[in-house]
């Protein structure tokens, strides 16, 4: 633990890299997965297909993906882009299953009501369905964020890993203190990001809280 406090400057720099490497894929994945998920939600065949592809992508070990990606896309073998693309793939794989499920959770009566007041299909999705799907979406976003933050550290094996660098350095120098510092830093980072997403989700869906209140009042 002492290592963490004596290397706060390093910790800050590495944390920034770590955040960049784990959260950029989260944003990219979200941007890709939401339209894709909404697109396949109603078509059973397409939905099955994406689910299968997504679970295949998810079985590829992260370390393997970091190494193999440069053979498939034109990046150099020890490049940040590999980690970012790999984690984006995982994010999409997880979210593309969650988005249709989140949209399923929207009550049909609400959809009918939205159609009845004149929403066109596209605006209905954007203005009615997606906002109502936020709670379920936030739940999976939290899982993805935490997984990503922990997974970035694996990148340190190929020389890119933010705070994970402390793992490989500590291991090579036989300094368990440095490894513990890395674990603690990543753990705290994950918990902070997780909490922020949760709080953000609550703010984005004020109606959930008020609905709970009225329910409690009715009882």
């Amino acid at each position, binding site marked *: 633990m002492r290592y963490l406090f004596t290397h706060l400057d390093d910790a800050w720099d590495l944390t920034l890299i770590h955040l960049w490497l784990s959260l950029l894929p989260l944003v990219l994945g979200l941007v890709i997965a939401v339209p894709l998920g909404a697109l396949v939600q109603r078509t059973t065949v397409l939905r099955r297909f994406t689910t299968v592809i997504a679970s295949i992508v*998810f079985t590829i*070990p992260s370390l393997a993906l970091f190494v193999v990606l440069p053979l498939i896309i034109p990046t150099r073998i020890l490049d940040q882009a590999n980690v970012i693309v790999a984690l984006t793939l995982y994010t999409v794989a997880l979210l593309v299953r969650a988005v249709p499920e989140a949209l399923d959770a929207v009550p049909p009566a609400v959809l009918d009501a939205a159609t009845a007041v004149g929403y066109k299909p596209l605006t209905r999705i954007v203005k009615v369905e997606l906002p109502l799907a936020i709670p379920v979406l936030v739940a999976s976003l939290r899982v993805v964020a935490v997984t990503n933050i922990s997974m970035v550290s694996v990148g340190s094996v190929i020389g890119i890993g933010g705070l994970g660098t402390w793992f490989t350095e500590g291991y090579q120098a036989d300094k368990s203190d440095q490894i513990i510092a890395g674990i603690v830093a990543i753990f705290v980072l994950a*918990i902070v990001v997780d909490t922020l997403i949760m709080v953000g989700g609550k703010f984005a869906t004020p109606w959930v809280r008020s609905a709970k209140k009225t329910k409690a009042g009715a009882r």
Partner: protein
Amino acid sequence: MNFLQQALSYIFTAANWGGPAGLTVRILEHLQYTAVALFFSALIAIPIGMIIGHTGRGTFLVVGGVNALRALPTLGVLLLGVLLWGLGLVPPTVALMLLGIPPMLAGTYSGIANVDRAVVDAARSMGMTESRVLLRVEVPNALPLILGGVRTAALQIVATATVAAYASLGGLGRYLIDGIKVRQFYLALVGALVVTVLALILDAALAFAVWLSEPGTDRFRKMPQPFLGDEVALEGASTSRSDGLSRGDHEARGPSPTV
């Protein structure tokens, strides 16, 4: 694509499968790490999930514990374990257990907690003791979700067990690590391909187990009935919003055509 050809020809050369460092040995090592980690995760996660799900007490432990365990980086725990306990089976097992416990705990808990209350009350009113209610009624009903958790855990563990090689252990990760070290990247690709195939086979086997575990005749009724949300409901139930879903599920199935 040159790499891919090299990797494939490596895999399809019989000579590379034998020997003390051949593919066969590596695959068995890999499966060994997976099985041991899966076993010990189940030993911890399933009883705890059963107790919390049955009593309804300590739910916060599931939510908080699952999140906290997920946040611990596997690689760090593995390397720390090697420094503390030396090389051997213990460090990778502990590190992989961190991945195995959360899905199994969540699956078991939500499976038990979502068993129809009427069924549980009926069992109780027939005079079953609490432990019999849990083991003879709740567990069989929750089995699909419990096994679903095992399936997710197995998938994660088998895919991550490659990390073990970084701590000078065996398994399919050897190809990855050694491939990077000696800059023979087709070797890394060999590791990646074999692990992916292994994971897919394991996943398919466990998916079959989940299907088999559906209580009663549900699994047969489900097939011809194209009830859209059905399959999703089962999977979605594990992500804690099962409350409304399972109820809808139940109602939808109530007036089933077989009656």
